């Protein structure tokens, strides 16, 4: 089973550990998309960390849009440890989606906003 090679994984113990700074840092460093994946709601290994991840994702998505980063570049998907195939499909599909969007040009986005 192989998934898109341009995905790089940063492991944390729980989706609740994903701080908004990590996502922002990734975009600043040059990531074209960020995917957070964690246990299904109600099935959290740490009880409710994934609910916190969900809330953070909602808020952060709004913020990223204001920065000129398309909503599609930041995704949250529930994938349990037993769902290898699902993870593969999501990775491939997400990579396809990002490819269609093209590379993220953060500075260009910023400049446009300033002019407007």
């Amino acid at each position: 089973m192989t998934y898109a090679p341009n995905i790089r994984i940063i492991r944390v113990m729980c989706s609740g550990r994903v701080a908004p700074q990590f996502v922002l840092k990734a975009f600043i460093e040059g990531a074209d998309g960020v995917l957070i994946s964690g246990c299904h709601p109600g099935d959290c290994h740490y009880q409710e960390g994934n609910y916190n991840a969900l809330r953070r994702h909602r808020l952060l998505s709004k913020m990223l849009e204001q920065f000129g980063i398309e909503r599609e570049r930041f995704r949250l998907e529930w994938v349990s440890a037993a769902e290898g195939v699902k993870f593969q499909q999501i990775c491939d599909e997400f990579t396809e989606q990002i490819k269609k969007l093209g590379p993220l040009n953060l500075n260009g986005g910023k400049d446009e906003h300033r002019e407007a």
Partner: protein
Amino acid sequence: MNNDKKIKLTINDKPIEVDEGITILQAAKMLDIDIPTLCYHPLLEPYAACRICVVEKKTGENSDLVTSCNTKVQEGMVIYTDSENAAKARRLNVELLMAQAPAAKPVQEIAKELGIEKTRFEIEDPEEKCILCGLCVRTCEQIVGAEAISFIERGKNRTVSPPFGEPSEACIGCTACAYFCPTEAITVEDLYGRKVIHNELNLGPSTAILVPIRQAVPMVPVIDEEACIHFKTGECKLCEKVCEKEAINHEMEDEEIEIEVGSVILASGFKPFDATRIPAYGYGRFDNVITGLEFEKLNNASGPTEGKILLANGEEPKAVGIVHCVGSRDKNYNEYCSRVCCMYSLKFAHLIKEKTNAEIYDFYIDMRCFGKGYEEFYHRLLEEGTKFIRGCVSEVTDLALTEQEEGKLIINVEDTLLGIVRRIPVDMVILATGLEPGLDQNEIARIFNISCSQDTFFLERHPKLAPVSTFSDGIFLAGTCQSPKDIPDTVAQAGAAASEALALADKGTFELEPITAEIDEERCSGCQLCIGLCPFTAITYNKEKGISEINDALCKGCGTCVSACPSGASQQKHFRDSQIFAEIEGIFIE
């Protein structure tokens, strides 16, 4: 009562010295002199209605007839219980009672003892049993405190009745009046004429004081507040009066006791699936549609029917249908298999076969005989002649289409082996209801900092490597709170949980997660944002220092608090912000 004062009297020429305030009847009892009574009961105020206890009291030359049950002893009394005058009066009273209530057995017995064969008075109703002794009225008033019945009318029309002769709202249905009635004039009947009410069957005594189950630990009786008369009317307390050890206390309340322990084994069990949730099966609508547990009660040799398999009308069933997977393996209710139902259904089929001549139909989706000797048992049943029909029951109805179906319950089922839809008329339907997680499963999980799987059964640490442990150290699982399982499996798991707990106690220490979070005292502003977020209640606020602190023993290292900390004071070991930032930077180095 002044116990010091003694009174001397003679009864049937026997002298006796008794306490002041007692009655002649009680004094006679001390001398072993038998005075017949009907309306007397030691727990109730004497009423002197039947006048059978009449005795002769002699004061010098004068002679007087008094009722011994309510006449108090007096100094120098001379009493004859069987003198000619007394006996004559008693015979007359018995004859009067025979005319009033010819069908009353105790009256007939006393008449027989006294050698009276016939009453010389006119008999109005040969079926009458009530002797108007007032025991029921006094019981209802003095013991129950409901005052739902009383005497009405006068003279020969006098009778016992609730107000206006209609069922009274004051009546709490305790049936104490029927219990106290000496002549069975008051009886208890089911308004609907049912003889066996399956869903009200109780194992063991159905009184207000009971041992909840036969295996109860500790083995002591408790008072059922819902059934106890005292909690309805504030009266009664009869049990308190008769308990010589004074062990009964109605004022007792629940109390909370704190016990310090090292580990906890959760064995909070399951909840049986509520069969009324599948209306098509008619549970609650049809008297003879019962659940597996109700059948167990019915079948119990020490149960209310003494182990006889009976329909609601008290007859033996001629055909019984057992429906498997009720509430299990069904996406509308529970998707999982409850594991125990197949085997208990087979057991039922075997028992019904043994006890009755009924035809037995077993409706199953798949036969799951997974344990030791289970498959062999299934084959035994196949040989015994139980009819197994593979298919899901769609409906249980009483709507008869043919003459044979009249008065029966018809099971509508698709026989998937024959490929046809069948209608099978039976007398009794047993629903093999599945196991559901307990009602307060999530609440318990929160208290003990453990997780539930998606079906809300408790989640074990690992299905193979740690099946009795949880994510909280020192909390272990046993039985159906973790997943549906039968008794052998539950016992095995409980044994494992007990030894895990012992092993932990023996070692005296446990290993901490290496990835717990820690709070930098210098940076923590004491905003307490993390406290609300921690699912394991591992963080507490230290008021003196004005900072939040993490309990390493409780922290599981999820890092939720770390990503929420606005000042970066909270950091997770091995997953520090700086480490993750470095990882991210590392990814983008060309």
